[in-house]
């Protein structure tokens, strides 16, 4: 299991670094937007994630929803917008344990980013080994671009990144569509990159397009308390942070693998 061990080792290093980088980017780019959206979510009183203490709420978040069931005791809109008191913070629908806001939540986000990073890195390293391996950081960047296209761009077209309180179709349906889109796009890109055949390239395009013709599961209603501007900002932030994550992941795999094999072939010599 020498090869397996090496793959896991490279993936662990790359996933660790890229995961920490991603978590730091998220702390600035995406998590603040999620926190803002949670204010709208709690003001709306719908499905609540109950991250115990909501961040200070903008008054307008609650003013439209002063009558919402989330704040039955609230005498006016302003108090509905203030962080929920302990009693009100008790989960209306029990959603189990969640990390406390602040450092604990950040720490768990770092951990899940690192774990996700290692998972993606394992797939990246294993698949690229079948194709000869990622020889250096530049090849890694190209592999990272492919990973970005497969895991972020393609599923994101049909299922754009969502903020809390946004309407969405049945979770399992969306997960099935997400996985199917990722697999189809991966096979499609693989056929284009590694099979020098026109019919296969045409098949590849069909595979990449097909999930979007079928269409992602859509919610019954698109009504949401989340302002469109906030959501758009979030989509941009998620897409860009994921792009950087994949580029870093690929590049580090290339660097670490180069140390292992002792080769650093130049891209010109090796890139097909």
């Amino acid at each position, binding site marked *: 299991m020498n090869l397996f061990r090496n793959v896991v080792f490279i993936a662990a290093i790359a996933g660790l670094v890229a995961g920490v980088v991603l978590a730091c980017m998220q702390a600035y780019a995406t998590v603040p937007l999620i926190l803002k959206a949670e204010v709208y979510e709690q003001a709306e009183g719908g499905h609540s994630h109950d991250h115990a203490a909501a961040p200070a709420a903008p008054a307008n978040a609650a003013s439209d929803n002063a009558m919402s069931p989330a704040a039955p005791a609230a005498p006016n809109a302003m108090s509905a917008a203030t962080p929920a008191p302990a009693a009100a913070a008790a989960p209306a629908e029990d959603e189990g344990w969640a990390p406390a806001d602040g450092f604990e939540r950040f720490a768990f986000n770092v951990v899940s980013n690192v774990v996700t990073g290692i998972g993606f890195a394992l*797939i990246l390293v294993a698949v690229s080994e079948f194709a000869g391996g990622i020889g250096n950081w530049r090849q890694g960047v190209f592999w990272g671009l492919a990973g970005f296209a497969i895991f972020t761009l393609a599923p994101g077209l049909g299922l754009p990144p969502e903020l809390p309180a946004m309407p969405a179709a049945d979770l399992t349906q969306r997960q099935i569509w*997400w996985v199917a889109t990722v697999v189809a796009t991966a096979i499609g890109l693989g056929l284009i990159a590694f099979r020098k055949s026109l019919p296969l390239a045409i098949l590849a395009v069909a595979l990449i397009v097909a999930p979007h013709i079928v269409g992602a599961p859509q919610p019954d209603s698109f009504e949401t308390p989340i302002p469109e501007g906030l959501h758009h900002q979030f989509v941009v932030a998620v897409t860009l942070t994921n792009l950087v994550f994949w580029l870093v992941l690929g590049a580090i795999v290339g660097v670490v693998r180069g140390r292992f094999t002792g080769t650093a072939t130049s891209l010109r010599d090796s890139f*097909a």
Partner: protein
Amino acid sequence: MNTASVSLGASVSSQSRFMQLALAALLGTFIIGFVGFSHIDAVHNAGHDNRHSMAFPCH
């Protein structure tokens, strides 16, 4: 992109090579599935911000 002449496990047979790489990819898929797709509440809540920020289907 048929590239690096030296591979990670040069000495292993091709069948063993395939199995080990497939196993690594499977492990990665399993990890992603657990962190990003698990329906268990505690797992979902722990990785909540990550799930949203990775655009995994959530909620």
